[in-house]
Every structure is written in C-alpha cells, then in structure tokens.
C-alpha cells in the first residue's frame, strides 16, 4: 500500500509558529477590578506605615510629656498630616475589601449547616464596630 503523500505548509514542518501573547505593563489599568486589586495590594504599605506611626507614638508617650508634645508637633506638620489622611483612606479600603472577601475564604459550619457568606462578612464588620467602640470608650471616658 502506498502511503498518501501529505502536503504540509512550510510553517508546520517542525513546529507550528505559535504567537505568544504578552501582558502589558499597564494591565492593571485595563479593568476597574484589576485597579481595585492593585490598590488593595498597595494599601498594605500604608498599613505598615500606620503600625510604624503607632510605635512612634507609643515611644514618645513612654519618654514623657516633652517628647509627646514634640511628637504631636511633628504629626501636625502638613507632610505627616497628608500622609496620615491618605493612610486612613487606604486602611478603610483595605478593611472593607478584605471583609467583603472573607466569606470566599472562610467556610464555617454551625449546627450541620454552612454559615451563609453574608453572616460571615457581617460578623467581621460587627467585630470591627465593637473594637472601634471599645477604643473610643477607652479614649473618651475621662474627657
């Protein structure tokens, strides 16, 4: 039996010529949800800064009234104030986006049933509100 002769176009002789697709450097600008993701990732830098700022505050308090007054002066400088205002914005964004994602990562069973996602998210927000109220009460009770 004679083998049928198969005509190949030149490009399939060794390997088809695949075209590799590349991701643009600005891929995160191509969709609002990608941008929200990148902002959420960047927010961790501001979370870190907030921790550093709180440690500085605690250090100033421990060094006495003069050091604390200096710290307050430094905090009211426009640059520090601006940074802190931006940080608060990013902290809220960080908390809200993560709380909204929590139901996807957490599967909790209670009484043989799976706890609905809305309840998990709501309990995160409730814990946040309670913690905030507790801190507010600690700070304001003497005033």
């Amino acid at each position, binding site marked *: 039996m004679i083998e049928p002769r198969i005509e190949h176009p030149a490009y399939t002789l060794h390997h*088809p010529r*695949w075209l590799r*697709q590349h991701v643009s450097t600005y891929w995160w600008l191509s969709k609002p949800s990608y941008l929200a993701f990148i902002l959420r990732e960047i927010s961790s830098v501001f979370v870190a800064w907030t921790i550093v700022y709180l440690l500085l505050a605690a250090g100033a308090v421990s060094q006495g009234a003069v050091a604390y007054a200096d710290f307050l002066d430094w905090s009211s400088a426009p640059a520090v104030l601006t940074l802190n205002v931006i940080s608060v914005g990013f902290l809220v964004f960080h908390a809200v986006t993560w709380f909204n994602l929590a139901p996807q990562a957490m599967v909790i069973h209670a009484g043989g049933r799976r706890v609905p996602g809305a309840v998990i998210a709501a309990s995160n927000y409730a814990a946040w509100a309670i913690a905030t109220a507790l801190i507010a009460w600690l700070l304001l009770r003497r005033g």
Partner: protein
Amino acid sequence: MRDRITAQSRSTDHITDHITLQVTRYRPEIERETTMQTYEVPCPKDWVILDGLNYVKDRIDGTLSYRWSCRMGICGSCGMTVNGEPKLTCATFLSEYAPGPVRIEPLRHFPIVRDLVVEIGDFMRKLTSVKPWIIRDREREKPLSDGEYLQTPDEMHEYKQFSMCINCMLCYSACPIYGLEPSFIGPAAIALAQRYNLDTRDQGAEERLAVLSEHAGIWGCTFVGECTKVCPKNVDPAGAIQRYKLQAAVESLKSYFMPRGSR
C-alpha cells in the same frame, strides 16, 4: 443550492439588524502578528456570538478558525475574549452588544495557534499534575462485595460546586498572575484539586498538597478574584484557592508542633 443559501440569508436580512464583528486573525503562514478583520453578520435576538462566527464561516469566509462543539455551555471549547472579557461564546448573546461593533479575540495568556484557536497544552499538563481523580489507599480498600462508598447529600454538597468546572480556561484568561507568571498552576486546576480533596471517598489530599503547596501552586495566587467573576459555571476558583491556603497553613503548623502525630 447557491440560490437557496442566498434566499435564506436574504430572509434573515429582512427580519434582523446587522452587527459588525471585529475578529482577530492570525495566519502563521503569511503573517507574524495578529490582524483584525471585520465581518457584518445578522443579529437576531436569539443569536449568540458563536452563531455569528458560524455565519461568517459558512457564508462569508471559510478560512476563519475557532473551536466549538456543544453550543450549550458544557464542552468548554468556545471560550474567547469578547470586548475584552473572557466569555463562552455559545452563552453570550450578540444582541447584548448591539449596536456593536463586537471585538472577538482569542483567550488571553495562551499562545495563538491560528485566528481564535489557542494552544492549551500547558493547562492540560497542569490539570493532570494535581491528580483530579479519586485516589484510594489500595491496602485499606474494602472488598468489592461490600458495595460502594456511600456519601450523604451534605457530603456531596461540600465539593459539588467545584465539580461543575468544564475546563473552559476563562479563569486562566482572566488571571493576571497566570499571564505574568506562566508557571502558576492556575485557578481551575486548584479548584479541581479541591473538588477531590473535599470528597469523602478520596484519600489523595496529601499527594496533591505536595504539588499545590509549592510557590507555583496556591501561594502564587494573590486573590485578584477575577477567575470567580468570569466563571460561567459559578465554580468560585478564588474561594477554593483561599480555602486551600488556610488548609495548607494549618497542615504545616500541625507538622511543626506535632512532627510525629500530625497524620
């Protein structure tokens, strides 16, 4: 025959508007980059994107290449990028994009073979690497005469969502991590690994964890969450991956604190 086709297409013309498809072409024998070709197709209310492409293939340009099979959202072949979003073209209505034009590109992040056809070997290899089948410990297998391994509806409910995956790869196309880091094992493969891990009949979780706890496994994911948004079967791969991370972290803590007693 020819007259009949013309008559048919004319009858379609009368009852519907038209819409322009801007289709990506890549013909490796004549070009080194993709080009865009526009086709004018009818746009009846009940036509999906795939109907438009089939119209092009049948009536306008037989050289257009794309994959499709079932036309009912279960084979997972017809995934393409429609106006920048990964979509199953058999489950996306043309009229949603009226008055057009509609941009139809191949799935992102995969090498293009021709026109809208992408090379899926990478995904297939990753899929098998997570062993998406029921693994049993042979020595502890009960004899056939004892019957099947039974499962309650609640136990089935635990993994059923992940078992709906049709391997359409829309999640890979939506995942920027996969685009930037091609070694990342990806959403669908991890969701399918989780499907078997959560199955009460399965005993292969440890074997799968060896593959998935590597850097290119679950830890490659930064929870962009797009995979879940584009999934046509509501599989929620992002959720599967985060749950897996939690499980892997607990396992490693266990082996750290209880080196011998963890298993």
